[in-house]
């Protein structure tokens, strides 16, 4: 809606300019991605190899799934700093179920997902019912979830023995790695929920103006709880892939700093931290931009530490170049 207003007030009302501005506002992250891919293809002939593309996709899949959940809570006007720790916690639940309690794989996965969703619900409850700011509430959850995982495994790793479990993280289906397929499915699901359902509209409404949403008979409480549940659930799905990749979970380093990467991807995707505005498609391309960037820098043999510097620059530049309030 603000889009209409700015177009109307624009000093250059010619149709071409308007279209250009509209396209840039809506799809700047996709343009940026295409430019980056073109640049990467020119700089290194191996970039467009099918093997390399698959590699990029597989590398981004875990943080990508986390970013999709993060998009929900950021559009809601919140934030979730706990996803990295929730991933470690769920991973610990999964591996403990398999190793210590010798439960079947599918039960361990269900338990892991339930654990992630539960921590998400607790986040939501603390924020809505306890009236603690999302930043602080999820910061507390971050230390709690990590600390429980560390305590259970004595800060070590838990390794599984059932090799069929590692198929999820390592095998291919029709030439596509399974983590990428999961990432794609969750993207589609998130897209449908956010863009095509009433619940999705409600998330935008609460993020845009909580008071107005409340007055339009939207249950802010329910929408908030479910959004944080989704975010916790995506962290748990990330945990399934992370644990099955190596058939083990390291309680001290798994998921470390993932929350920041996920938030970065969402921001680069054009979602506003003040809530109410953003697109899940943007997040997808935000994730891909970060993935391609680190891939091409690896191919060009640039120090991984400089990649961190570039990542920081991109986060700031993305917001500088995108439209403002």
């Amino acid at each position: 809606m603000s889009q209409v207003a700015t177009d109307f007030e624009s000093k250059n009302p010619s149709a071409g300019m308007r279209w250009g501005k509209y396209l840039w506002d809506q799809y700047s992250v996709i343009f940026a991605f295409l430019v980056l891919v073109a640049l990467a293809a020119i700089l290194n002939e191996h970039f467009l190899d099918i093997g390399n593309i698959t590699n990029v996709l597989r590398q981004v899949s875990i943080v990508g799934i986390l970013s999709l959940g993060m998009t929900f809570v950021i559009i809601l006007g919140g934030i979730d700093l706990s996803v990295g720790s929730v991933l470690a916690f769920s991973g610990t639940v999964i591996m403990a179920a398999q190793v210590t309690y010798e439960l079947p794989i599918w039960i361990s996965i269900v338990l892991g997902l339930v654990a992630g969703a539960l921590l998400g619900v607790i986040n939501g409850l603390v924020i809505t019912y306890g009236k603690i700011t999302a930043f602080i509430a999820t910061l507390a959850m971050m230390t709690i979830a990590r600390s429980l995982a560390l305590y259970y495994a004595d800060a070590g790793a838990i390794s599984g023995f059932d090799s069929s479990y590692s198929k999820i993280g390592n095998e291919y289906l029709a030439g596509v790695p399974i983590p990428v397929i999961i990432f794609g499915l969750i993207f589609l699901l998130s897209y449908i929920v956010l863009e095509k359902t009433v619940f999705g509209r409600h998330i935008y409404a609460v993020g845009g103006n909580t008071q107005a949403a409340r007055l339009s008979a939207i249950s802010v409480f329910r929408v908030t709880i479910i959004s944080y549940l989704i975010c916790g659930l995506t962290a748990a799905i990330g945990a399934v892939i992370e644990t099955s990749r190596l058939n083990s979970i390291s309680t001290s380093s798994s998921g470390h700093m993932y929350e920041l990467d996920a938030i970065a991807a969402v921001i680069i995707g054009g979602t506003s931290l003040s809530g109410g505005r953003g697109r899940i498609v943007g997040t997808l391309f935000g994730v891909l931009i970060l993935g391609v960037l680190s891939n091409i820098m690896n191919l060009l043999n640039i120090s991984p530490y400089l990649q961190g510097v570039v990542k920081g620059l991109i986060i700031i530049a993305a917001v500088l170049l995108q439209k403002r309030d």
Partner: protein
Amino acid sequence: MQQPTFVTTERYQRWFSRNKIFVTLIILVFLASITSDYFWTWNNIMNVFRQASVIGMIALGVHFVVLIGKLDLSVGSILVFSGAIILWGQNLFNFDIPGSFLLGAISGILLGSLNGIIVTYGRVPSFITTLGTMFIYRYFMMWVADAGAISGSRISHTFLGHGYWLGIPVVVFPLILAAISAHFLLSRTLFGRYIYAVGQNPRAAYSSGANIRMVTVIAFALSGMAAGLGAVLETARLNSISTANSGVYYELDAIAAVVLGGASLRGGKGTILGTVSGVLMFSILNNYMNLQNVSTYLQGVLKGLLIFLVLYRQNRLREE
């Protein structure tokens, strides 16, 4: 007859909600001293202060940024950046303690001001700006030092980290000095008034003559400076800094302490006394659990629960 009682109860409630952190701190100290014989000894209390020194220094700076309703996520990385510069200053140019403090402060002010300039002139939200510079500052130093550690060898620097003066650890003095100056700056100067004004209502602050951009940049510069000074204390403890591991998540510890101390992330509310109490509370909690032989790994759980407990429904009184 009933009305006065009602007023007094309300006043007590108000007072309690405003000083919740202080009351909780006293309760915690009380519980700790009756359940542990060792807690209330001079050495142990000094340990509590010593452990609080680095995060305390950082939290004092972050306090300014939180007061204007912004966030600074880059302080952990500034600590690493400044720490490396301080140790290079000692190794290459033979700087002593005063020179180290100066180097820490200057490098911190520069990095912090850069944050402030991006936030004000680039109009990038502070969360995003400092998330970006958090990556930039740390990875730049990791690139320079190949993700390794930088070590110093000055004995005076080790004395700063481990020595005692008048029975008090030397690291505590800079912290006390910084807390007093921050308190003075906030409560006795025009700049302090402006900080609260910008946090509460930027438009009104602007109308009454505050240069909002200047106030914002200075707040970020102070935050950076505090991180730079924190780097002096951090490097003094180990006489080295690890570019990959030092200062990780310090920004979150500092913000948690500031908020625990009663500051609101929306800005305009919070005192230095509160922030110092918040820092001490985390430090006492850690110390007490160590004394009671509780697993280090469980300390995060109690820290998180403490945040929930202290902040639970605290905003309600303000909203109503």
